């Protein structure tokens, strides 16, 4: 048998079971390979996993308490249409439609609750917080997805152009719904970014001959996709801050008794 390749040695190191008996046999017989294997084993053995911080026995319960307020109850199969928007593909249009109905309300509620004083009933705050957290997660996903598309556009290769275009059409439908659910006055920065995003998505979606590199460069320049990517990233981190604050408020209030 030939000497073992580095790949075979690595396989052997991690999974004796996955490695062939022939490899073990060869290692016993061949000094060269045995030496390579020893060196590999010593290198890999030196990479120690960092110790994972302890979590208390109540950790799971704490996690549950932190999220349970945001979760709707599943309805038995017969009548599940009520909350179908959480089901299956979160990015289906139905999901986007229902989520965006909540967006304006949730942003409004969020602002209100920041101004409220602490005498407000914990239940109400937590109900808002729960709803807002879910909405923010959904919106965060939309921004993530848009960010990935924009990055994809900047580095598009001929082989990926068709899928980028399909993805753009998909995001466009969701984006229109989000955009429609937001008043200019609710959150002008978000509204403006979604507008800008929509214009880019329309351009990308509507290239009948597909995207060419020339067209992409043109788009990047004319539509300032760099700038848009920056806006989306800022918004993404802002949405995340909202999620964090939302969690922090919920935690301080003694959390989600829904």
């Amino acid at each position, binding site marked *: 048998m030939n000497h073992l390749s*580095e*790949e075979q040695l*690595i*396989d052997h190191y*991690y*999974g004796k079971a*996955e490695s062939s008996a022939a490899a073990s046999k060869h290692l016993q017989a061949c000094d060269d390979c045995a030496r390579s294997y020893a060196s*590999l084993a*010593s*290198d*890999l053995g*030196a*990479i120690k*996993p*960092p110790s*994972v*911080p302890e*979590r208390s026995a109540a*950790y*799971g*319960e704490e*996690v*549950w308490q*932190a*999220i*349970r307020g*945001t*979760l*709707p*109850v*599943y*309805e*038995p*199969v017969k009548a599940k249409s009520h909350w179908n928007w*959480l*089901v*299956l593909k*979160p990015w289906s249009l139905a999901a986007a439609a229902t989520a965006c109905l909540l967006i304006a309300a949730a942003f409004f509620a969020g602002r209100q609750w920041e101004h409220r004083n602490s005498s407000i009933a914990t239940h109400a705050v937590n109900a808002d917080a729960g709803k807002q*957290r*879910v909405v923010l*997660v959904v919106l965060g996903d939309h921004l*993530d997805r848009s960010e990935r598309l924009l990055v994809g556009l900047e580095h598009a290769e001929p082989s990926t152009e068709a899928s980028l275009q399909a993805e753009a059409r998909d995001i466009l439908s969701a984006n229109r719904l989000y955009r429609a659910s937001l008043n200019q006055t609710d959150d002008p920065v978000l509204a403006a970014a979604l507008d800008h995003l929509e214009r880019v998505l329309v351009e990308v979606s509507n290239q009948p001959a597909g995207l060419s590199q020339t067209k992409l460069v043109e788009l990047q320049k004319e539509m300032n996709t760099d700038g848009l990517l920056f806006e989306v*990233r800022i918004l*993404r*981190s802002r949405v*995340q801050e909202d999620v*964090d604050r939302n*969690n922090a408020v919920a935690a301080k209030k003694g959390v989600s008794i829904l």
Partner: protein
Amino acid sequence: MEVNDHVIVRKVLDGDKEAYGTLVARHSPTVFRVAFRITGDEADADEVVQEAFLRGYQRLQTFESRSEFRTWIYRIAVNCALNMTSKRKVEATYQIGEETDPVTQQVQVADHAAGPERTLLSREIQSLQTAALGTLTPTERTAFLLRHMEDRSTAEIASVLEIAPNAAKQAVFRAVQKLRRSLAPLRVNP
């Protein structure tokens, strides 16, 4: 005897929301561990745990009874953790652009120097390892972490990362090659 995960999932889908709490309690420690290994940050890992179970609940109807809940939620958590690290990377890029912070760096150096020799050395090794891991692509890094620290098989890694088994194998292979190269200075001479 412990109630089987599949039975609990069924109950949740039949309207017993509280039953999900059992799944959360049961699998939080494992999910936290992998989240911490990927993000390298305690607070981020806590956030990933919450997000993973939140998403798990949202997608519970897509959970197929022929798979294991623990593997399924693990996969969701790995993806949440990967998103978290790429988000942190984006933030870090902006921070570097905005503020070079010589003060913090000096403080860190001083702090290092103050420690006893041994702590210093292991910290140096640790930070070299972290840096080396940082040079890997997210797929390579995660594949390696799952293989090296979480003892996952190639098949499991492939399933978690939703790539072909051979691609998972290649990712581990490339990761090991790159790591050996970057960590060569640490090698004890024979």
